[in-house]
């Protein structure tokens, strides 16, 4: 036992003398996971995008060509699917900002601590229930004989049915908490004294909001938008359940699951990766990463 203790002390001393070695040993696990499991799978995805499929037997042929990318570029439908996905992701993001900002502002600046705690729980609560349950619930709400039509019927109106509008509504609902929480955190960091100062200097509510609150909270809004935008961009289950609309994810899914065309799916999957890289670079310029 004494020898073991000595050896342990020896190891500890050796590590103490070499802080770099200590650090690299500590980080080897997480970094290894990041590089091998995370970036590695992305690399495999990218490589697979250059393979092709033998269409009859359905086996992947490991020959490099750019056929997949050419298919994606030459076909109108893939462009319009990318366009639609980005458009709905953007619409969801804008909707969530408009919904989240007043709530977050109330939580951060107006509500008393007890109410605030209650509201935080209320915002986080939907995250405890299953994604699928929430989407299917929306399917029931939006159905022909669903509660929405029952509610609108006396006014001579009719719900949107299952389609693009339905996906927009459901996504806006699903990702709202991911927008509220960053904005709430961002607003909380703004000292109340700044708002007092603004009104002392004669700034009205709107002017204060526009010139003081919004610029300071903007990085937080952008941070929230990263979540809402990327989550919508990558989703394929909601469009399938509440519409027959195709998102990028649906095309990837059918190419893997239906056509078994893994290379084309991989090629198409690089599109959202590129979009998100651009989005994140833009977000970094707007200072979003400091408020995450």
């Amino acid at each position, binding site marked *: 036992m004494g020898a073991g203790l000595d050896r342990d002390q020896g190891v500890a001393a050796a590590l103490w003398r070499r802080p770099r070695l200590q650090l690299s040993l500590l980080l080897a696990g997480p970094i290894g996971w990041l590089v091998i499991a995370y970036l590695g799978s992305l690399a495999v995805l990218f490589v697979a995008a250059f393979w092709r499929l*033998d269409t009859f037997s359905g086996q992947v042929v490991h020959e490099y*060509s750019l056929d997949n990318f050419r298919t994606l570029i030459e076909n109108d*439908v893939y462009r319009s699917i990318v366009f639609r996905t980005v458009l709905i992701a953007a619409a969801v993001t804008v909707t969530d900002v408009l919904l989240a900002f007043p709530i977050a502002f109330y939580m951060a600046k107006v509500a008393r601590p007890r109410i605030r705690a209650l509201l935080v729980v209320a915002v986080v609560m939907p995250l405890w229930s299953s994604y699928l349950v929430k989407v299917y619930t929306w399917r029931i709400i939006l159905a022909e004989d669903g509660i929405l039509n029952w509610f609108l019927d006396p006014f001579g109106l009719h719900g949107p049915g299952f389609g693009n509008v339905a996906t927009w509504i459901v996504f806006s609902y699903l990702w709202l908490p991911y927008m509220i929480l960053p904005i709430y955190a961002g607003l909380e960091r703004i000292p109340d004294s700044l708002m007092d100062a603004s009104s002392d200097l004669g700034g009205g509510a709107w002017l204060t909001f526009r010139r003081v609150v919004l610029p300071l909270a903007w990085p937080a809004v952008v941070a929230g938008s990263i979540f809402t935008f990327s989550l919508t961009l990558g989703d394929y289950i909601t469009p399938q359940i509440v519409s027959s609309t195709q998102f990028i994810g649906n095309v990837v899914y059918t190419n893997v*699951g239906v056509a078994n065309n893994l290379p084309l799916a991989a090629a198409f999957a690089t599109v959202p990766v590129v979009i998100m890289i651009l989005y994140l670079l833009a977000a970094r310029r707007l200072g979003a990463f400091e408020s995450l």
Partner: protein
Amino acid sequence: MRYARWAAVLAVMAALAVVVGCGGDDSSSDSGSKVKAPEGPEALKTLGDGEGEVNLIAWAGYVEDGSTDPNVDWVSDFEKETGCKVNTKIGNTSDEMVTLMRSGQYDGVSASGDATLRLIAGGDVAPVNTDLIPNYADVYEGLKDQPWNTVDGTPYGIPHGRGANLLMWRTDKVQPAPDSWGAVFDANSPYKGKVTAYDNPIYIADAALYLKATQPDLGIDNVYELDDKQFQAAVDLLKTQREIIGEYWSDYTKEQAAFTSGDSVLGTTWQVITNLLEADKVPVKAILPKEGATGWSDTWMISSKAKHPNCMYMWMNHIISPKANAAVAEWFGEAPANAKACDETAAKDHCEIFHADDEDYFSKVAYWTTPTKDCGDDRGAVCKDYSEWVQAWTEIKG
């Protein structure tokens, strides 16, 4: 520094764009036009004892153990007799079944004609030694040795049954009752937004079938062997249809829910879905329209990587035994494969209604089969193969 990074990103993207733009013109490889059985998988020589379980991929309604409806059960007896516990995974489309079979985790599959040849060509299924399946002798001759279940005289599966894709509507919402597929292809349909269709590339054949009857100058003969002009006409028809489609279905529970809630009131169906809806008292009716229909002739196949081959052989023998075959045919709404099954059905006229031995009737049903480059006639290799069907389907859905 910041700009330098931006520039680097732009440079990478530009390089990528150049590379993509300059993509060589190497012609796409010609996919095998005729199926060749791969060497390797061999049929079982002798039947041994059961392995205790068997993992199946099946169409909804093909493997019922009483959990859907206590009276619908042809699995429990099998499990008791053979000691093979049956685990089932429902496949919603043929493509899904092919993908699942490729995973190598299943012993067998109830494959339709648009999956069988792909499975054989891919080496995913093994030939079947029909001597080990006593009930095979009673299978209708018209189902044996067919191009979708036999290659070069070697059987790759056991015929299960056959039937047609039907036209279903809500009788309280759709009047007058339709008798033609025209009802789902009418651009000015009064049921716009409530029409449904099967969400799979193979549905292009349904449009071709309708065109075959309504536009004879296109010269469509086999709806799975479409050349450029015929294919384009079918795709255009489906793009028009897209405007009146509320939602597509491939998961049978989705169609069931949509007809129950009234989100869909008119569209393609399988008999089994109609049965389930009628059991729930939803007012629906399904018919075989006057143009005929696409349909299926299904085959139980055994995986080349089967871990429980003996149980799988016992299952294949069981599912075409007169009793089980009659039960599954009645539940799913199809014609049984075993001639003796007709004496076992609860409804005595089942085999007449479903034209079990009526080869003339089934000549009007276009069985699902995998489209290939080779048209199979004197037009040569100018037809659209399945990958082009898949791509067209993505385009149709938009």
